[in-house]
């Protein structure tokens, strides 16, 4: 398709404006975290890492960070095991109700967080005797599974069954085929899925508020709780800046994986 010169210029301008809208606020957060001023007034009153130091030495921030990381790792681990198994089952075998099962797996990510949150909250408090850290992990796993499953399923479909048949043909039993062929060929897709799942869990707030046990504060919850306390504002800003960096990294790594896959045929 060829595009006229005027159209090209107009599209470029629109693209630039759209990007500016998204990224200027993020840049402001990052710049402000190094603001030397007491109240984060704009323009910044000089460069300083004092708020970063304050954030690092803040007990609440540190605890929330540890909680979020442990939660993310646990939810991701659950999602990796279940999501991979589900993808293998649905990608390799044809059975009655396969499409419905696939829909049921994907649905939690499409449901509004508040619905998932209320539903899980009801079940946990009614049948599991209340909210704990464990219920929080279960809740996060419901949507973390989806991204692992989607990544794994795409890879399973792209691989086809051929290399696994070749492996069986050469004398490998089922588990040998999984260890030597299936898993190595899925590894990069699973890593991508795991990073995305961790990222999802790390910045989740709605489902978390409904399913976290008493006294459990994740980093996003901490931000929410401290957002409107004027003396905490600079520290909240630092935490937000930190979250920006932590969220960008997995996406960047995942993109590197997928472009490496396109060149090297699924080899990580």
């Amino acid at each position, binding site marked *: 398709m060829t595009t006229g010169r005027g159209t090209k210029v107009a599209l470029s301008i629109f693209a630039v404006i759209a990007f500016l809208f998204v990224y200027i606020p993020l840049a402001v957060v990052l710049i402000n975290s190094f603001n030397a001023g007491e109240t984060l007034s704009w323009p910044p009153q000089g460069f300083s890492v004092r708020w970063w130091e304050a954030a690092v030495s803040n007990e609440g921030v540190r605890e929330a960070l540890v909680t979020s990381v442990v939660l993310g790792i646990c939810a991701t681990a659950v999602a990796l095991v279940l999501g991979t198994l589900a993808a293998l089952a649905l990608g390799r075998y044809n059975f009655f109700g396969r499409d419905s099962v696939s829909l049921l797996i994907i649905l939690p990510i499409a449901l509004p967080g508040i619905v998932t949150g209320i539903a899980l909250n009801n079940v946990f408090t009614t049948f599991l005797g209340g909210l704990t850290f464990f219920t929080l992990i279960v809740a996060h796993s419901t949507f973390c599974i989806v991204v692992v499953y989607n990544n794994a399923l795409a890879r399973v479909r792209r691989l086809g069954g*051929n*290399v696994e*048949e*070749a*492996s*069986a*043909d*050469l*004398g*490998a*039993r089922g588990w*040998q085929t999984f260890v*030597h*062929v299936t898993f*190595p*060929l899925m590894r990069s897709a699973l890593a991508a899925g795991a990073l995305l799942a961790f990222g999802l869990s790390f910045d989740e707030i709605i489902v978390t508020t409904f399913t976290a046990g008493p006294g459990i504060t994740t980093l996003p919850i901490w931000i929410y709780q401290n957002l409107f306390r004027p003396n905490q504002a600079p520290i909240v800003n630092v935490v937000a800046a930190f979250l920006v960096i932590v969220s960008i990294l997995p996406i960047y790594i995942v993109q590197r994986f997928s472009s490496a896959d396109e060149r*090297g*045929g*699924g*080899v990580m």
Partner: protein
Amino acid sequence: MLAPFSGVLRTVSERGHVSTAIRLTNLRKEFGDVVAVDSVDLDVADGEFLTLLGPSGSGKTTVLRMIAGFEQPTSGTIELAGVDVTQVPPYSRDVNTVFQDYALFPHMDVLSNVEYGLKVKKVSKAERRQRAEEALAAVRLEDYGARKPSQLSGGQRQRVALARALVNRPRVLLLDEPLGALDLKLREQMQVELKELQRAVGITFVFVTHDQEEALTMSDRIAVFDAGRIAQIGTPVEIYEHPKTPFVAGFVGVSNLLEAGVAASLLGREGLWSVRPEKIRVLLGTASPEGSERAAAGVIREVVYVGMSTRFIVDLDAGATLIAVQQNSHATSSELGAMRGQRVTLMWNTEHEIPVG
């Protein structure tokens, strides 16, 4: 062309003589409502090169996949060397497969690909390294062990797939259209190499193809598949010179069928007959037959120049349309073009009239 495959040769002779490598009895395979394979009986002799030939969807690949163990037959039995393996999983069958798209493991280098079968069977590292290198040498890829499959050409991948299968010294090698993805030149070269390799190693080859020329040039015997059944099984000469059904006559070579009515008036014979195009001479104008020759008058509808030869499509006055192929030993393309629409006499020896079905 290929280095002697001493390791494999040794093993085959150690096994002693078994006359039947594969026996398929009343094999049937249904996929839902579709009957893919029906009433297939087939004996493959030890060391034979057997080709399953047929159009796509004729069931030949399904038969191969059932021998390999990837598909369970709906009914019937599969025996390998006299042992019923119908219920045996693929990894316990003494057969190896060369897949259509090679199915090399993309994350392993060439040497690891070839070693794989020995590794999962717990052959010692030293022995499997030696045997893999031997197998790579046999397909002239001894310097390619460290490469990844993605760094190889189609023909090289094909050879790796072959080495990866043969290194296990199987009793039977199954080949699923292994040359389909190669260009014509390479395909013709690999046909010769495969045939030589098969003679050298003495392993039974079951070869699936839809290419009749490939089947005719390589096989000891050909089983022609039509709609899930074996239409005919025989040597290439039997299949080509004496097709048993109109389908076989049409699929192997050009059909040139003379329907019952035409056959009666032209040949004075009952039933369906065929004459191969290269057996027919094209003579301009009228000519009278001599001795055991048969003459049929007609008009050239189309002249197709195909380089080495020319194909004449002739509408006979008797009602049929025959194709005749002539070598381009003298004619030039401009002369040939001028022949369109001309009256000709087709001439062939009556011994080349083949009853079909």
